[in-house]
């Protein structure tokens, strides 16, 4: 009995400690920094605003080199330009629903207004808390399920951007086979897949698209496991694909590695990964599907600073420059004409991109 107890104690302490390490790393270094940054910019920059912005990140928080970082970039820009004050907090993996609600309430009670929730996981809690604090303005990214006067839903047409990189992959593929690696199989990531497949098919319906997802809900580790991403991409390259598009957040690093080792190409996601990924894999990044969360956050904050309070659903699509493709590295320069033609057709409504595969 006592031996079991000791083993159990060691194991569970280890598990608890490991969960602490896992999410601790990125933020301890960045969080105090942002706190300092916002106050110093207030002192040095000319513009001043008494706006206090509360930023509730999804799991991973600032420093994930992907989705959350993109939102953080928009916030930083607003802090620098408008002199707003900001405070940040991030979700923990597998936390209780009332922990998310409580995070939003803590912001509201501490006088933060507006409060921006990053990620669809906050959808239900925004619904609850926005009703409790009718005088506080909320914004939520990637969810449009809440309809209230004090809630702005910022959503993206990921399928349109994915269509363009799909077209790029089809135009560049030599083997007639391309791949898609999704992080976690959710409706959101399926939008990326649907757009990508449509883009490939628009160029050449005969090209096959291999699709794989790293994990299934409720296991969200597929967004942060480069080893899984590498294995999945390696399998596709071995199978004859020569370009793989990933929508897998932090797991994408593994996709780039696999491409680099096998001499193939990969497509990045969310931000211009040619600039954010490890320099050793830069040359395999054909292009990146840009999801400009920073533009959405910045635009929202600029409107709040300007005195108007946005509410309702705002879709950031190709026309609004909310999504797009990156050109860093110059690998798609020769097909830029084709891609821009597709882009114009989507904006004009001549091509309608599906949102589900």
């Amino acid at each position: 009995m006592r031996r079991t107890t000791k083993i159990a104690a060691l194991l569970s302490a280890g598990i608890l400690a490991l969960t602490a390490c896992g999410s601790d790393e990125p933020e301890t270094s960045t969080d105090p920094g942002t706190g300092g940054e916002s106050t110093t910019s207030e002192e040095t920059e000319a513009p001043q605003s008494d706006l206090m912005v509360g930023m509730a990140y999804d799991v991973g928080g600032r420093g994930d080199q992907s989705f959350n970082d993109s939102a953080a970039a928009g916030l930083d820009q607003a802090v620098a330009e408008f002199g707003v004050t900001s405070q940040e907090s991030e979700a923990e993996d597998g936390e209780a629903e009332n922990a998310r609600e409580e995070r939003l309430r803590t912001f509201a009670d501490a006088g933060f207004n507006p409060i921006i929730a990053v990620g669809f996981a906050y959808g239900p809690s925004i619904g609850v808390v926005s009703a409790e604090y009718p005088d506080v303005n909320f914004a939520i990214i990637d969810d449009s399920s809440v309809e209230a006067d004090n809630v702005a839903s910022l959503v993206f047409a990921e399928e349109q951007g994915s269509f363009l990189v799909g077209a790029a992959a089809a135009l560049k593929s030599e083997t007639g086979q391309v791949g898609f690696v999704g992080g976690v199989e959710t409706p959101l990531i399926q939008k990326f897949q649907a757009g990508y497949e449509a883009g490939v098919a628009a160029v050449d319906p005969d090209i096959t698209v291999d699709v794989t997802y790293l994990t299934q809900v409720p296991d969200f580790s597929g967004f942060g496991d480069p080893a899984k991403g590498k294995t999945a991409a390696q399998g596709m390259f071995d199978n004859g694909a020569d370009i793989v598009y990933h929508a897998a957040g932090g797991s994408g690093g593994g996709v780039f590695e696999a491409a680099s080792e096998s001499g193939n190409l990969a497509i990045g996601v969310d931000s211009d990964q040619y600039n954010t990924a490890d320099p050793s894999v830069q040359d395999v990044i054909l292009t990146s599907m840009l999801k400009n969360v920073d533009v959405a956050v910045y635009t929202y904050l600029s409107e709040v600073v300007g005195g108007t309070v946005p509410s309702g659903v705002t879709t950031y699509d190709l026309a609004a420059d909310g999504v797009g493709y990156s050109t860093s590295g110059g690998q798609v320069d020769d097909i830029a004409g084709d891609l821009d033609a597709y882009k114009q057709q989507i904006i004009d409504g001549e091509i309608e991109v599906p949102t589900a595969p």
Partner: protein
Amino acid sequence: MSTRLVSFLLGLLAAALALVAAFAITSLVLIIAGDPVGEVWGEILTFPEQRNLANIINNATVLYLSGLAVAVAFKMNLFNIGVDGQYRIAAFVAAVVAGEAWLPGYLNTALAILAAVLVGAAWAGIAGLLRATRGVSEVISTIMLNFISTSVVAYFLRKAAVREEGSNTLGTKEIPEGSRIPSFSIGDGPGTEIYGFIFIAVAAGFAYWFVLNKTRFGFNLRATGQSTTAAVASGISVKRMTIGAMLISGGVAGLVGLPILFGDSYSYGSTFQSGLGFAGIAIALLGRNHPIGIALGALLFAFLDEQSNPLQILVGVSPDIVAITQGVIVLTVVISYEIVRRFGVRLEQQQVAKADRPVDEPKEVTA
């Protein structure tokens, strides 16, 4: 002092020692990291507001059930790491059953709870069966079953899922209003509702105590846990006890997700709370497998979780510091109970020695 009182005081001493040590170690971590120690403890140890209090009680209810599930197996000297997988698959099945609403009102609720208990028991029973018939370590098999549970739930969730317009979360059908377990409020304002399921949790705690201490089955279970050979010698079937203990442990694990399901989320979706089973192991250890001890442990963990939430916003320190505290508490508890146990043994020996000497001589004379 009576021996009962002494052992009670020693128990309190052990718990206090463990907490003080854990707080000291956490403070040390904060100092090394250069974070404001005073402010952090100030924030964590403030008296919670009504709605925080409600959250603490609600989360403690969930953690309590998880701790109980682990404790049942511990009593039999089995280490059920699989509570995590068991409660997730059980909560999912309960959500589907309740969402389909084959029966009206509370009959539907009862059916869903029964389904959850049966599924949890069956899932844990696999490990129990393997252990009893093939000698497979339940530690290994339950860990593997956790992974399988994740995949099974993911597979069926995509079939059962309904998606709300504009939302990117996946979830099962919402439980109809007539089948939800009503909450009661402990204050005014929003967010002060306590899950009605808390009464079921208390009943489960009582049943745990009763079955283990007042029934023949409970006696057999404890006896087998303490010495298999003695149990065999007195005619207890160890195989049956192993499977029985795992079935009960899994059945209780099946209840873990239900307070959330019937009191808050009303559906099982991609954002359903995970990791509760692992917290349960720590809490069962902390509570020494005693129904009241587990309750205190669950309240402590829920308190730390809740109070750490605003740390990042108000003090600028990551709430993960509390995960360190929780992990350290588990270790210090085991160490301090061992120290206090040895101290208690020595105390007893001294008392016996003291009592022996004067009594010795007249005894010999009479003999």
